[in-house]
């Protein structure tokens, strides 16, 4: 199990991570989402042992990852801009990784080499952004990591490759009981592959739970009354947001769905429909709660 224990990370006076704590169960795909500059990439770097936290620790099975080669050999981190030297090729990097990662699989590497449309002896630096990511992922998956940290992995990939990668990630989790943490703003892709999400903002955790649970805990309701209803009428509900379009009210409400439905039906609406929320809507809704919404930005 990967446990984030009260991690604090500062860059000068700026606090990037502020006492962050949560756990990620083994065998899960964890979607790390958050506003720009919220600390997603910083958190991934702390987990993968690149950054030393100023406080707290990232632990795998109770052992801190920082400066611990044994633990780090179970992890692989692909940053938002994977780095390659001018003369790096997939082939020569595979030699390095094979020597460093005891879980390296030649079979898997060969299989992936056939799967991805890139030449393993071509200089990676000359490849497109998307192909560079494929190269990085190819090498990462060949190490069969127990913990795979991916930062904006879907950027620059065409839809087919995105599907391929999602398939491979699921395969990794299924076959290896690996844990994958994906930091991304591409919530649509995350929604497909993640079973857990963590929402961070300004270095703090806003939400951390199973995706379904997260989606079930917040509801969007379209409702019409034949009379004027004041906002005070919903005071017993945890209404996050109310939008009016004539008589049509769009409500975003947190809480138990059945209770909300019963409560609203008791108010005898002319029309009512509970709609499922996408991850993006969950994100927006949750961020609005912490004051990060478009109205506040415009102000």
């Amino acid at each position, binding site marked *: 199990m990967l446990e984030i224990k009260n991690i604090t990370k500062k860059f000068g006076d700026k606090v990037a991570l502020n006492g962050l704590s949560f756990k990620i169960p083994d065998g899960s795909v964890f979607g790390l989402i958050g506003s720009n500059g919220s600390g997603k990439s910083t958190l991934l770097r702390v987990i993968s*042992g*690149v950054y030393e936290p100023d406080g707290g620790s990232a632990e795998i099975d109770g052992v801190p990852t920082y400066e611990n080669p044994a633990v780090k050999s179970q992890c692989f981190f692909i940053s938002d*801009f994977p780095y390659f030297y001018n003369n790096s090729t997939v082939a020569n990097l595979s030699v390095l990784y094979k020597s460093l990662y005891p879980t390296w699989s030649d079979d898997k590497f060969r299989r992936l080499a056939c799967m991805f449309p890139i030449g393993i002896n071509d200089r990676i630096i000359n490849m497109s952004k998307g192909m560079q990511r494929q190269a990085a992922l190819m090498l990462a998956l060949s190490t069969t990591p127990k913990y795979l940290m991916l930062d904006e992995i879907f950027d620059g990939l065409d839809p087919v490759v995105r599907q391929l990668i999602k398939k491979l990630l699921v395969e990794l989790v299924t076959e290896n009981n690996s844990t994958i943490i994906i930091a991304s703003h591409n919530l649509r892709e995350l929604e497909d592959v993640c079973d857990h999400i963590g929402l961070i903002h300004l270095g703090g955790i806003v939400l951390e739970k199973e995706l379904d649970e997260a989606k079930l805990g917040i509801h969007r309701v379209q409702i019409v009354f034949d009379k004027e209803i004041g906002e005070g009428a919903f005071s017993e509900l945890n209404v996050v947001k109310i939008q009016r379009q004539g008589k049509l009210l769009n409500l975003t409400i947190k809480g138990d769905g059945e209770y909300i439905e019963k409560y609203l039906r008791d108010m005898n609406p002319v029309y009512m429909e509970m709609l499922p929320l996408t991850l993006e809507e969950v994100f927006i809704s949750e961020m609005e709660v912490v004051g990060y919404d478009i109205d506040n930005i415009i102000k």
Partner: protein
Amino acid sequence: MTLTTLSSKELKPLFKWAFKRNKVIIIIFSIFLFLNGPLLDMFVMSIAGLFDSDFEEIGAVSLGLYQGFAALFTFISALKTFSFLHNKRSVDMFGALPTNRTTMYIAHLLGGLTAVGVPYILLSLMTIGITARSGEILKLDLFMVGTTLLMMIASYILTSLIAYCCGTIVDTAIITIGVNAIWVGIVGLYYGFITEMIPGMDFESIIDTPLIALFAPYSFSIVNLVYYMAEQFGSVITLLVWNIIFIAGTLFLALIAANKRKAETSQNGFSVKWLPMAIKAGASIVSGGLIGFIAAEVSGSGYSNMFVFCFWYAVIGFVAFAVLHLIFARGLKGRIIPSLIVYAATTAAAIAVLFGFSFGMGIDTYVPNPATVKSVTFGYDEYKDPENIKTITEIHKVITEDIRKNNEYPYYLGDDNNSYVYYDDVYTTDEEIGDDYYNYSSKNNSNITDIQKTYINQTNFEFKYKRKAGFGVTRNYYIYLYSNSDHKYNYDRIYELLLKLYSSEEFKKMRNKDLFDDDAAEKVQKASLTYYYYMNSHYYESGEATLPTNEVFMTKFREALKQDIIADENYQPSRYFSVYGDESYPFIGDSYISATISYKKDSISSTKYQYYYDYDYEDTYSYDANTYSVTTIIKPYYKNTLKVLNDYQIVPDVSRNYQDYSYDYPSSYYEFCEDGRPDTLRKLTEDSAANFIMAACAQNGVNVNDWMDDNYKAYKEELLKKSDELYKKYMVDKATPDQPIFNGDYYIDNYIYQPQADQILSELLEFTFEYVELTTTEA
């Protein structure tokens, strides 16, 4: 903090990775070394008609380049190898790899060092191999290769340490160059200041100390080269020892930096915040100090120079500080107020140090406590006897007191005469004393002290102390003897102390190392006696006699000579022509008997070593392919030695009265002539006389042969009487350096006052004309 331990499992792949990263550098470096090493050797050897001097010149330049390439490629490779620290993405990649920071650092260090070290070793061995076959162009040997490798390691580690302290490769390069240049600059300035201002300090001593390379390993290659070419192996060893200490120290610091560096430093300033400030301050001191120093030097002399220095120091120092601030801070931002405070503080400190130097800071009057001194090299000799060490410190003390009392104080920049001591000359001439004048000086002066003073031809007094604690002290003073000087230097006291020193047994033993080496008697190959005997200015006798080399004679002879030298109260360090000057001889020039003992070459190491550096002993020490020879003067009062020579009947006849000061050499001259010995005066007189007679006969219209048959015997007697009279008149009684016979300039030509000789010949010519005319008229 604790350092992580090295993990050998990850070391190998990371080492290979770092090594391969330097592939291009390996190729280019190897090409450069090959062109400048083996290829140059083969090329130069193929050129016909080159002289040894050409080879030496080419060799020196190419060795400089060879060493320069080693330093340059070490720098480039270190920057490239550790550039992974200066890119956020590469830090992500390497930071996430399953290893610790110690392993990461050591792997990169070893990989990079191997990339430059292996080509250097291989190409150097190839060059040495070719050199051994074809001659010596590039004077490279295994010792040089070894010392250079140490320099490369030290430089690589320093650059890696700086790379871990910096966020960008540009900052790393600037600070690496800065650390090396600033250290060399500060040491140079320090020496410049103290040499210019503080008496006794000598800029040349900068080369005697590895101080200049202490924190500038890239200058090791150059300093090492200079030492090596100058055969200063002692300094090379010191440098090597320091190199090893430096490597250990910087490696430890680099490991701390590698473990402590925050990954986010990449592309983002410095992980050691004071480093750029220190470089700015250092650059300010060096550039301001250098320009200020030059400005003070060219602006003349006097205390105003100090203010010229301060002005230019402040201006140029500020410019350097500001430029580096703009580079490091990427513009006009960041820590401006602290920077200005540091600039002001370093400027004030540097100026305070300068003015401190002007008061000597105790350096000018410092003389080591003799009790703390292990040995002192004074002149050419290293004294270890505590009594002599005490005497030398007293001489040193007299000089420092004289200077403080008589030279301008406080000292100032632009005054390069601080170390000069102006002693009154015993002559009345305005000429500075030089070696040529020693031999002809004041022979008739009855004051022996004054005469002997002139024999001290040491024009600089250098004191090199080695102390028991290990640190050395070196001071050098320039001694000038001037007449009519207003200075009140205490020369009499110095002279008194010098005589005491030169009378010491230790001094005599050092100057006669072969004699006092008990094993040397067995190594004698040949021995001879030379006599060189002045009768007067025109006449001398000289010759040689062979000495037996059997052990019995040699043991007696050497023992007697040792006893005489130890007992000699007038033993002095000058050349023997000067050493043996005695006022009781009424002649110009000196007579002497000398013994030359030739030893098997390289068997007398101490004296051989002395030959190489002892310039003044060129006349005394010599060598050929098989032997090394030492010549010792046997003075008239060396009774033991002369007795051995007399016992063996090998004292030359000419010097049978060598020990008799009252011996009448002018009258004995005739006897020598009668004996048919070759002698200058006779030859001179007879040749000249023949010309005179022919000229006189021609003028008087008589046949030369007829005149000779009738008159030559009588003429010769008269001529010799006349010439003796003339020599006594002109050369003996009146000829002294300060009272030349013709009141005009005199000059020396083979120990003869030519104007006087010309006058004598002129009068002899007149005499001959008169004699021929008289005899012709009478006939």
